[in-house]
């Protein structure tokens, strides 16, 4: 039987937590068997989403879970906060749109890095779920 890795929850409050969250993502990805390139994609995605929490929501949670099956390895990450929410998600997903003086590439860039990307947001709850999936070799 394959051993599943327990989900990790990282609380996000300030920018030191961003570093911690991406280290955890990288480590779990490594344990599951993702390549270095994929570990870097995941760490970068986690960095973007958790920084958005610190910048726009204040605090939140990053949950990193092994969701692998028999045929594939899958790392699923949910980044969630109870901040003000995003009023126009379509606009937030556009390249170059930023209300914080950033490059405006965090959300659209993360979508391009990942295989699965879903975002839902309302005042008081923003939740982004991402996943990277690879066939077992």
């Amino acid at each position, binding site marked *: 039987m394959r051993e599943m890795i327990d989900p990790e929850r990282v609380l996000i409050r300030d*920018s*030191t937590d*961003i*570093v911690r969250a*991406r*280290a955890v993502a*990288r480590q779990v990805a490594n344990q599951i068997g993702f390549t*270095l*390139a994929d*570990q*870097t*994609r995941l*760490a*970068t995605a986690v*960095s*973007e989403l958790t*920084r958005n929490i*610190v910048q726009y929501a204040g605090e939140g949670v990053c949950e990193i879970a092994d969701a692998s099956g028999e045929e594939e390895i899958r790392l699923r990450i949910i980044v969630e906060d109870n901040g003000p929410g995003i009023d126009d998600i379509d606009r937030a997903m556009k*390249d170059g749109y930023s209300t914080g003086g*950033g*490059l405006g*590439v*965090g959300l*659209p*860039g*993360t979508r*391009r*890095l990942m295989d699965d990307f879903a975002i839902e947001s309302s005042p008081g709850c923003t939740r982004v779920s991402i996943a990277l999936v690879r066939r077992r070799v």
Partner: protein
Amino acid sequence: MIIPILRLGKILLTSIQQELTDADVLQLQSDLLRKVSEIEALGVIIDITALEVVDSFMARVINDTAGMARLLGAEIVICGVQPYVAMSLVEMGRDLIGADCVFNLDQGLKLLEARIAVRGDAILSLEGDEYARNDRP
């Protein structure tokens, strides 16, 4: 955390040896610019060999720092971008890094020397502090 900034004549060299928090990155940016202005540095090399993640925030700070250093009068090069970092950066968005990049310090120094020579306002000496200015009519 204090990141050392080394001085080679009129060139400043800084090597990021571990993952940095946002506060560390901004601290380094202001330390570096202060040093550039203090010694009227002609060139700056930032070595990011040890960085396993460069996200959009880091990319923006690198670009901004390069632009600011240029405003003061210094050339800037980035060295040691890791292959997986390059992959993630380009997948997230093209042209996220606007500064010039080289493989290693040696090439970085050569590029800066060439740049500075083309500018022709100063002759670079790596040995010490002395440098000669070409007096313009």
